[in-house]
């Protein structure tokens, strides 16, 4: 018999893993998707309680969470595009200038290395050049 506690445990695990990712990862998009994963854990809780009480309120709340997550996705995407245009990077560590006042900057112990640029794919020309 799967009880409400099983679903609450799975929801808590998703929230915890999302928290780990949000705290440690540096890529904006990964951080954002981690936040979305935490929201999924919360929706799971709401649905489990709604099923337990035989009440549709849980599903309605879940729907609102999905709506708010969609708004958040649109805004976050626009912000990432803007930041990317300015800084040419999706690394959150590159934006030390907008950190909270009086906090020390967090710098890498060994500085970031430039990695190999991925070359664009080259298509082999085929056919004849039109006259």
């Amino acid at each position: 018999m799967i009880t409400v506690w099983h679903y609450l445990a799975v929801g808590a695990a998703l929230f915890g893993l999302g928290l780990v990712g949000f705290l440690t990862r540096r890529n904006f998009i990964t951080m954002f998707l981690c936040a979305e994963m935490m929201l999924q854990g919360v929706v799971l809780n709401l649905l489990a309680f709604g099923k337990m009480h035989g009440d549709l309120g849980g599903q309605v709340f879940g729907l609102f969470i999905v709506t708010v997550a969609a708004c958040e996705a649109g805004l976050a995407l626009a912000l990432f595009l803007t930041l990317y245009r300015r800084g040419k990077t999706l690394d959150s560590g590159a934006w030390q200038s907008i950190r909270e006042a009086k906090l020390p900057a967090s710098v890498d112990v060994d500085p970031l290395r430039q990695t190999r640029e991925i070359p664009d794919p080259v298509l082999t020309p085929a056919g004849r050049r039109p006259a």
Partner: protein
Amino acid sequence: MNLFAATPSGNAVSQLATGVVLGALAFYWLLPRPKGRSVAIGTFAAIAAAVVLTSWVVRQFGDVAKDTVGQALFWLFSAGAIFFAAVFVAQRNPARGAIAFAFVIVSVCGLFLLLAAPFLMAATIVIYAGAIIVTFLFVLMLSHTGPMSDENDRSREPLLGSLAGFAFLGLVLFALYQSSPAAVADGGRPDQKLPARPVTAEERAELLALAKDLELASVAKDKDELQERTKDLRDRFADIVGIPPSAPDAGHHDSAAASIPDRLALARDPQTIAIARQAEELRTLVRQTLNQVENATLKANPTDVEISAAAKSLGNLREKSMLLAGRGELPARNVTAVGHALYSEYLIAVELAGTLLLVATIGAVAIANRKGVTA
């Protein structure tokens, strides 16, 4: 799983702590870093943590094999969700991480289906696995145009971050443990269970069994058959709707099991009050119907009209029992019911959500369309 149950008492918390520490260490090793990352040790620790925590959940919250298919699906979907979540968090490449996240969403949608929410499942698949993932893959491709650095191979404070996340997980699981039936049963703790459902599963099963017997009784041909089929109905209804049993010294009926109207007497929310009122109506109907049946069957020579009237009211009682058994379950027509709830009870919230979407769209356009920044 007795493997992790070395001592009989007090080991629930220590097993939970073991799982949490193992999980934190696993992510400490798995998170991308230039030096000291070990996928092998991290994977091993992650599997160990998953085994310890799963056995803990099974031991504390029960693993009675009743609904085999539902149980298999639950373990499949939850294992998939947690596995892909771990892959996603520990994955260096954000594009592969986004794909793993799509699998997390699909698994969670399976759990939504098990929780009787098909509409929310469809909406989540469409919104997340469709729109969000495609958009983010687009952004990721866009971000590969310039010179790249290895920031995706670094993590901020991997040890502290994983400790914080798993400390949170451990505390939530511990709080769940304190309210679970196992802990309340063996810990001598005050009864702090979650609030009971208006109609419990046992009462629902008993009401459905009663409805089946009432159906048999309502097609009874003669007086003796009717008497035979209805003789224990009063006692069986007694526990559920709270009528005094036929004999005051009937053994198990004076147990502490409260009837539905008694239990819901202090309820305040409208839905529970409606269920309590329905149970009280059923109580009145049980009394009237069984009295009518007894009047008919105790006569020496009841007429056919009396017998058929009694059978008809038994059929009516059956319908009312079925209706009460159905309360406390989610409605079968999920989309209809969710739509009705959205546009009756939650209309203001729907309007606010629409306004929020509009404002978010305007904001996104305003932010992304900024001129004067060198592209």
